[in-house]
């Protein structure tokens, strides 16, 4: 294990910013810490770096407990959200800083700096100062500076937070390539689920200082273990149903839910892709009117209104949309192919983490 956290808690005053978190990162893995802002993910990153100290729990880097090892001896590379480049130093001096501090030989420093300038596409910018660089260039200097002393782990705080949407996409691919080439264990913080899904080998999902789920992008998307993860990763339709005769009902919708007593209230969730639409009104069980179509590039999102007024979201491809001859205002039939019981509760579901229940692997059945 490259990085390991065991029951790590961090209190700021009375409030836990990180609450009893345990997880590990494998050697060479590219891992995302994902969650809404204020979820404690940056605090976790800073604790691994040694910039914050845990209130309790243990931190390990390559099997060595590092709780009492100061930042400068942990041999980590840290890329700050706003890069924190040394303003009074040129690009070259920024990159060489860590090597100089570690008393590398001058020739070695020059060779290493040249290597990184090449790798990060910064050649020709050696003599520039940070204020003479674009945002993307600054970020690459920050990464080069962190990589220079050959750290055992790379930690990046919101690496794509400060650049605009078009560049983010390029940066993501570029980070994957870089990680592939260097194979350094990398942990990065993001609040963007798409970014985490696309870039990382595994994702750790945080909310309110607690670890919600850890898994590959596919696992957290397809098998969310609680409602928070289900809602946070991707889009999800949720409805609250009451059980009558083993079937959860809401308006015209029916969800068979064996094993739950009559009168219980359940929260049911299903992904937009599970809502199948047909222009043939007799093909599927429910009727609905297509209220609005959102174009998301190659995929489209449909807003469908049931006779009871309930709105469901569906996702289909452009081809399918054209094939079905859909347009806003048309009547369609639909079915829900798979669904999950997200939580059991009475009345409105409290947003508290404790209110979430573990889900059985798959409750959903085709209707």
């Amino acid at each position, binding site marked *: 294990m490259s990085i390991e956290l065991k029951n790590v808690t961090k209190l700021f005053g009375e409030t836990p910013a990180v609450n009893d978190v345990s997880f590990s990162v494998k050697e060479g893995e590219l891992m995302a810490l994902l969650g809404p802002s204020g979820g404690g993910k940056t605090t976790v990153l800073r604790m691994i770096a040694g910039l914050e100290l845990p209130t309790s729990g243990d931190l390990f880097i390559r099997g060595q407990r590092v709780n009492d090892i100061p930042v400068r001896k942990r041999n980590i590379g840290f890329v700050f959200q706003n890069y924190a480049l040394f303003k009074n130093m040129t690009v070259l001096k920024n990159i060489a800083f860590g090597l100089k*501090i570690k008393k590398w030989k001058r020739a070695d420093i020059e060779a290493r700096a040249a290597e990184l300038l090449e790798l990060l596409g910064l050649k020709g910018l050696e003599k520039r100062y940070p204020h003479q*660089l674009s945002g993307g260039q600054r970020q690459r200097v920050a990464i080069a500076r962190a990589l220079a002393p050959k750290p055992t782990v790379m930690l990046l705080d919101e690496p794509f937070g400060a650049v605009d949407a078009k560049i983010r996409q390029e940066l993501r691919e570029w980070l994957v*390539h870089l990680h592939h080439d260097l194979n350094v264990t990398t942990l990065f913080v993001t609040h963007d689920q798409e970014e985490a899904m696309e870039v990382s080998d595994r994702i750790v999902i945080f909310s309110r200082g607690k670890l919600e789920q850890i898994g590959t992008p596919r696992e957290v998307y397809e098998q969310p273990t609680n409602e928070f993860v289900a809602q946070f990763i991707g889009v999800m339709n949720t409805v609250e149903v009451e059980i009558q005769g083993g079937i959860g009902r809401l308006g015209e919708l029916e969800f068979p839910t064996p094993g739950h007593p009559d009168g219980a209230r359940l929260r049911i969730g299903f992904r937009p892709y599970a809502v199948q639409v047909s222009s043939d009104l007799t093909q599927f069980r429910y009727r609905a009117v297509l209220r609005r179509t959102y174009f998301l590039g190659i995929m489209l999102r449909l807003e469908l209104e049931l006779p009871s007024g309930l709105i469901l979201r569906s996702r289909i491809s452009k081809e399918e949309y054209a094939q079905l001859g859909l347009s806003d205002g048309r009547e369609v039939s639909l079915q829900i192919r798979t669904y999950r019981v997200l939580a059991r509760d009475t009345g409105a579901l409290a947003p508290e983490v404790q209110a979430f229940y573990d889900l059985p692997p798959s409750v959903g059945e085709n209707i």
Partner: protein
Amino acid sequence: MAGAVKSNLGSGRSAYRRGTAEPPFIKWTLIFIALAFALLFLLLPLANVFYEAMGRGFAFYLKSLSEPDTHSAIRLTLLIAAISVPLNLVFGLAAAWAIAKFEFRGKAMLTTLIDLPFAVSPVVSGLVFVLLFGLQGYFGAWLDEHDIRIIFAVPGMVLATTFVTFPFVARELIPVMRETGSEQEQAALTLGANGWQTFWHVTLPSVKWGLLYGVILCNARAMGEYGAVYVVSAHIMGRTETMSLRVASLYEDPQGGPAAFALASLLALLALVTLGLKTFVEWKTQRNFDLAQRSAESAKPETIRAPA
């Protein structure tokens, strides 16, 4: 950074012209009043100092400056500045660092305390030390027994000057350090630097212009201080007289008028040099500020090649 604020207002000038244009006569009246005031109360007296100093010719000017008592006054002034300025440099750095980068109990109190010397009359500042270390003071008897002289001697003058010039460096540095934040230092730590290396390679260079500005102001005040030094020095000719004190005592002498102006012109010259340096440093910090602003605006990312 006073310079930054000033020119921010300046850059809005063109907007005034276009939008809320004042009638020209108001503009010109205000400009006239300001200029006339500056001329009458600032420039004219200053020019008069040089005029009076040179009134009896350059030879007399040099002669009055080379009197032994005047010489010793100049030396003493330099000595006091040479001790109190570095002291306040160190203190200012420590205080600014503590206030800008740490949260601690009593921080607001310390911030207020730093301003105390500005709020207190210099004469009172001097008196404080007399009350502490004078013969009638708390430590007076003990000091006398051990034959240590503070009041009416150089140590007392250094103390009083240090007290009076206490706020300059810290006050200049606090806003600069706040603005810089502590991320650069944290970055240095993650790269393996220890506290001293971080301070020397990262913190100090990033505040150097603010620091220099504070030191210039501190030095000017240290050399020009009169009230506090007057109280603790007893202005003994040739021994505890600084330039400012010497000017006053020469002036009181019926024959000393021109010599007083000669020495005063030296102090005035120091003021002019200080102003010149201050303007330069302001220009320099302003330029850094502008560059930072511009780069913040132009921080538009650009195309990135994936490593092959």
